């Protein structure tokens, strides 16, 4: 294997991005350095990954040499595979996992999306002490749910270095989703860099991994398209805010100098993981985004996908061409392939790279890999600014090749052109949002979609039997701009009917959160709760990209008081994203019910909710799991930079 320098030179970087080809595919070496090559084609009848099933599991977390890109690296793996073994459980069983830590640092495993006792949740410092080097910790809990989930380390950056795996739980009663084949498709972002180096790069270099910055050439192109004055004004608006509309992600897979190689089931694009099928079969694909930082837009050119489950819980089937999967989310889809081969194509949010796999009738077949979509730019909507502000962004909206929020469906807004108002822009944290900014103006994919009205709330939040009252309620939140808060969305919008930046109006039918409706037949992971909420909890998702500080309500973990969810109460949680990036917000221990336009009995259950930039959304929680639960952004480096808190149910 020739040596290569990271980030330098086209050829080596290309291999970096594409990874090693199938012949040499992600070789995993056991600690004794005996090569243990894994095939890119799974054996029939499996979920497509090495699997363990039953009720008793012995798992070992070990430092293991892997070679994803051509450069050997030390990963932190479970039982020596990347991803770790798929664990197959059955609803109703009590499962026992004896996890031995063979690293020289503390470790942990968190069962993502599982309803478990708090001491089994696997968050060091919160639910237990972590697993010390050399120690074995025994996790034991009843499996109270079914569906697709995953597990990962909750210690340091081990999640980035390979400590993750899939969970598939078979329901006790008949599965309403019938399929002839069933594969897990686990998406990950792999880096040869030390995660601490990534932190340092994020803390020190502005846009260290961003190789899609706007250049002088972009300025001239936009000028000739939209006029010099309009372009200048648009650049001025972003410049005055010190915001870069091309800040799409923090850590990229850019060939020029990104760091990520995107994997499907542990295989880089060149190795091409392949799932086999026979014509006429129904294939279930369980997508899990186990990345540290990367959102993916997933499609299978030539195939409609029927989404049947989200975050482990069944939903009314919805047929789509494409879906965006936030970090830690899962989607199960059904496909009925008729041709010989299809490409599963998962491009990263910033279009800096992709993960790719193949569905084929036999080994060795491939289908064309589509080109990535054009790069897009953020808009004033992403800054939580009003429509009058958006008008001023006209020049940029037009210049970006991807469709823009709302704009594609609002010809009048697009013609506002040069004569726009700048008012919204300067009033970044002014409370007086102009009336025209709100929800009704933003209809897109779903014609005439309106955010559902918020439910009635008591004037004073009640105290529960243990004397606990919900916190932080809106009255408790006093947010100010400062080193940790660059922006406070003046006019956040609810855009559950939009697939998100870079996907809006792309001509494909893309899944949105407004499409998700809980399936009222078959296994139910939690019982329906008919009560109205007793209190509202408000969390602003705040940050400073430049300093790389993130938090809830402007506070990092150490600064904040824990969120309090009074045991037994029904709580409406409001999330407002004040930053210019998506945040996948994960509450441990309990499902949340997304407040979309579904009937109140049919709100979809989620464990991770992706909040778009400048978006405001709600979900419902029944606080029925006592304990102290982690509550955080699932972008690993955001979490480590402060967007982490705990939620106390007492």
């Amino acid at each position, binding site marked *: 294997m020739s040596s290569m320098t990271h980030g330098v030179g086209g050829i080596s970087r290309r291999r970096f991005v594409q990874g090693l080809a199938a012949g040499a595919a992600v070789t995993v070496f056991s600690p004794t350095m005996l090569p243990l090559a894994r095939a890119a084609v799974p054996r029939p009848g499996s979920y497509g990954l090495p699997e363990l099933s039953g009720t008793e599991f012995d798992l070992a977390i070990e430092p293991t040499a892997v070679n994803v890109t051509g450069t050997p690296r030390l990963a932190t793996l479970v039982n020596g595979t990347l991803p770790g073994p798929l664990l197959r459980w059955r609803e109703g069983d009590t499962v026992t996992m004896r996890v031995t830590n063979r690293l020289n640092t503390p470790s942990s495993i968190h069962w993502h999306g599982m309803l478990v006792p708090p001491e089994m949740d696997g968050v060091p410092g919160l639910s237990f002490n972590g697993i010390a080097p050399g120690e074995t910790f025994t996790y034991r809990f009843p499996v109270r749910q079914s569906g697709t989930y995953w597990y990962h380390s909750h210690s340091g950056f081990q999640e980035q270095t390979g400590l993750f795996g899939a969970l598939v739980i078979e329901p006790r009663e008949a599965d309403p989703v019938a399929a002839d084949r069933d594969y897990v498709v686990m998406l990950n972002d792999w880096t040869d860099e030390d995660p601490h180096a990534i932190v340092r790069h994020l803390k020190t270099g502005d846009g260290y991994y961003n190789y899609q910055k706007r250049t*002088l050439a972009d300025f001239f192109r936009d000028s000739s398209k939209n006029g010099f004055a309009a372009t200048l004004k648009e650049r001025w608006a972003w410049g005055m805010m010190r915001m870069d509309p091309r800040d799409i992600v923090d850590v990229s897979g850019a060939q020029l100098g990104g760091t990520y190689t995107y994997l499907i089931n542990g295989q880089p694009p060149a190795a091409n993981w392949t799932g086999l099928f026979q014509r006429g079969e129904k294939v279930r694909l369980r997508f899990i985004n186990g990345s540290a930082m990367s959102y993916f837009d997933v499609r299978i050119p030539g195939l409609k996908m029927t989404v049947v489950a989200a975050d482990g819980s069944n939903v009314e089937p919805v047929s789509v061409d494409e879906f965006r999967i936030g970090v830690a989310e899962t989607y199960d889809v059904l496909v009925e392939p008729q041709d010989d081969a299809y490409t599963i194509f998962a491009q990263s949010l910033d279009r800096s790279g992709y993960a790719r796999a193949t569905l084929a009738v036999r080994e060795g077949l491939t289908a064309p890999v589509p080109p990535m979509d054009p790069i897009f730019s953020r808009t004033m909507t992403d800054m939580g600014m009003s429509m009058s502000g958006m008008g001023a962004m006209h020049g940029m909206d037009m210049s970006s090749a991807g469709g823009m929020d709302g704009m594609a469906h609002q010809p009048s807004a697009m013609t506002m052109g040069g004569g726009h108002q700048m008012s919204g822009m300067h009033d970044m944290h002014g409370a007086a949002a102009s009336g025209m900014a709100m929800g009704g103006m933003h209809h897109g994919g779903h014609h005439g979609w309106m955010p559902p009205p918020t439910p009635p709330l008591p004037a004073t939040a009640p105290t529960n039997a243990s004397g606990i009252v919900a916190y932080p309620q809106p009255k408790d939140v006093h947010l100010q701009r400062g080193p940790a808060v660059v922006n406070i969305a003046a006019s956040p919008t609810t855009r559950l009917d939009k697939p998100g930046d870079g996907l809006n109006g792309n001509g494909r039918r893309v899944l949105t959160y407004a499409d998700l409706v809980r399936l009222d037949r078959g296994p139910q992971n939690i019982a329906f709760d008919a009560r109205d909420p007793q209190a509202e909890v408000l969390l602003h998702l705040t940050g400073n990209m430049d300093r790389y*500080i993130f938090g809830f309500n402007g506070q990092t973990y*150490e*600064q904040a008081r824990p969120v309090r969810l009074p045991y037994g109460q029904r709580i409406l949680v409001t999330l407002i994203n004040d930053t210019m990036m998506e945040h996948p917000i994960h509450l441990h221990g309990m499902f949340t019910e997304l407040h979309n336009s579904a009937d109140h009995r049919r709100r979809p259950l989620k464990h991770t909710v992706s909040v778009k930039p400048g978006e405001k959304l709600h979900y419902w929680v029944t606080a029925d799991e006592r304990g102290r639960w982690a509550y955080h952004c699932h972008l690993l480096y955001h979490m480590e930079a402060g967007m982490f808190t705990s939620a106390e149910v007492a």
Partner: protein
Amino acid sequence: MKPANKNLTQMLAAALATAIAAPALAAGDHMAGMLGTVPPIHTDPTVGYAALNQNEWRGGDGSNTYRWDGEAWYGSSFNRLWLKTEGSLDTDTGTLDDTEAQALLSHAISPFFDLQAGVRYDIKTAPSRGWATLGFEGLAPMFWDLGAYLYASDAGHYGARLEGSYDLYLTQRLVLQPQFELNAYAKRDARRGQGSGLSDLDAGLRLRYEIRREFAPYIGLSYERLYGDTGRYARADGEDSSKLLFVAGIRLWL
């Protein structure tokens, strides 16, 4: 040290101490209910950074000068220790000119700006000077990296500095950077050849190619200008009060 300067220095120290103490007062009770000794996340790791933004040869008028302008910091998101140094070495004569080092404490005070306070030490052929420093550094609107500083010397002199730079991306690797540093002094310091008022400007235009972010060779022009009495002192010494020079160097990060 004169009493006036002592007062200034004390005020600086007090302001900085207050600023640094503020976040500690706001800390919540999150850590109280913690299990064990290791928090679930390590929010604010101490990080270090060092860069030589100017690391170049200057010439074109028959002289040969090595010029450096570097900075390093170490600390958390809010509080950092900065070391800065800049200077020129005449490679023909081996003499240092316009050389200084600063040690500063910084505290984040706004979304984009840090308050900085500390000391600066000048090394010159004429008497060296120590200064107390107070200033701001950060990202100004339109993406200008700006620094503005006030100085009070151990000999009762006051100075001010404004410096800035901007990165214009021509391509994703090719970057044009205008840069300037402007110095002014409250009163004349004849022994150091320094007039009062606007004293000197060092401006540059550099075109760098980021082979990687940490390693970027560049070429460019620098313009040095001495104003007022500072210029007159220089001319009396047989030096030019304005110079346009070629530069070539490598920007480095560690």
